[in-house]
């Protein structure tokens, strides 16, 4: 039987609006920064980056407000779609829009220095370590789906907001810890990132099948099965993008120097 009780309508709406506000704000700030940068440098900020930002924000918005978000409260399959959008696809799209690079280009030098100092700080170094980010990411998911947290999330507004922000923020943190598209002060080796990504993907796949076999409290079996499969295969689709980007970055970095290759050919 279904035991999850959605919050009262008023409360639910407040939660949705509170969750949407930061993303709407981010959208406007990005556009404002693009306008400022273009005015200062007389140079076009890449259109595709703006498109990435807009689609990323749309992905977050449909998972926290509107029909899909409402359905997600009572339907585990819809919930899983929002989880994929909010925790995986949106972070990737937003990272591809390189917001940190944009911020540093837009801010006056003194303020930009301050931001770099914060980015280089020890807490951020620890958090953006791939292993820490992966543990927070996959560990958080295991906690959500194997304990009563999932049920609590639908009963308590504060928990609802916290869980959703956590899913998004940690997804973002994990993405920047694996692929270096935006500004990245703390770098680790390709091998290390590959191993961590591999473990995180495995953890995600294992949890999907675990959900399929052991529905979280309050979820009916048929929905848990479809939700688990959505997580397994939907996760794959987005993970493939991450792997391709990571491998492409390796490919570019290991490019043999032209001169060396020429010399090798001549010497033989």
């Amino acid at each position: 039987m279904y035991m999850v009780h959605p919050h009262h309508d008023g409360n639910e709406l407040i939660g949705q609006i509170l969750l949407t506000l930061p993303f709407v704000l981010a959208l406007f700030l990005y556009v404002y920064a693009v306008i400022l940068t273009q005015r200062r440098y007389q140079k076009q900020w890449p259109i595709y980056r703006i498109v990435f930002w807009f689609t990323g924000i749309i992905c977050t918005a449909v998972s926290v407000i509107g029909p899909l978000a409402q359905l997600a409260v009572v339907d585990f399959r819809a919930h899983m779609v929002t989880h994929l959008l909010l925790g995986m696809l949106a972070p990737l799209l937003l990272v591809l829009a390189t917001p940190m690079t944009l911020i540093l280009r837009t801010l006056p030098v003194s303020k930009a220095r301050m931001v770099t100092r914060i980015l280089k700080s020890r807490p951020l170094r620890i958090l953006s370590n791939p292993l820490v980010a992966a543990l927070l990411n996959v560990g958080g998911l295991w906690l959500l789906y194997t304990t009563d947290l999932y049920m609590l999330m639908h009963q308590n507004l504060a928990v609802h907001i916290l869980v959703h922000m956590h899913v998004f923020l940690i997804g973002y943190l994990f993405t920047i810890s694996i692929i270096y598209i935006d500004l990245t002060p703390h770098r680790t080796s390709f091998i290390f990132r590959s191993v961590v990504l591999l473990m995180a993907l495995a953890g995600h796949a294992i949890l999907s099948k675990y959900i399929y076999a052991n529905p979280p409290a309050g979820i009916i079996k048929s929905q848990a099965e479809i939700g688990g499969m959505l997580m397994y295969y939907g996760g794959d689709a987005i993970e493939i993008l991450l792997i391709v980007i990571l491998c492409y970055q390796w490919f570019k970095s290991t490019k043999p120097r032209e001169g060396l290759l020429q010399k090798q050919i001549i010497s033989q």
Partner: protein
Amino acid sequence: MVKDNQKFTNQHRFNYERRNVWTGVLFGLGVVAFIDETVFHQLLHWHHFYDKSTTDIGLVSDGLFHAFSWFATIGSSFMLADLHRRHAFWFKKWLGGIFIGGGAFQLYDGTIQHKVMNLHQIRYGVDILPYDAIWNVLALAMIIVGFILLRGSKGEERDTEKRGLNVHGPSAS
């Protein structure tokens, strides 16, 4: 002229012999896992996503190999491109690697994952023995073919040495 060029383009392969094999092994593993997923899970519906007798260790093994196979397919494709870029591609080593990697994964899947960990069976509602036999014999055959190909490519190496070409590249000269 074209022939000359071809010999010319792959002349760094002796420095990258092992990498050619590994690139093949990873690609073979990925391809077999991909065939397993598309043909047996999605098209034939013989394999099941989850089987009630699946053990916990079976789930862990499945998750690890699932993630690894995607990574191996994509990663080894970039490694292949890198070998070409370095004029170091060696077809026989690469192909041998593919057979070994593919066969090894299929054998692991057919023995450990299907039989020991009970992840799922090849097919349900039939006498499973012939399926298991064909599956694993095929896997062994692939591994053997792979090793034969690798041995065969040793000949190429000797020929080149006999002709007095620089086998070890400029680093040793």
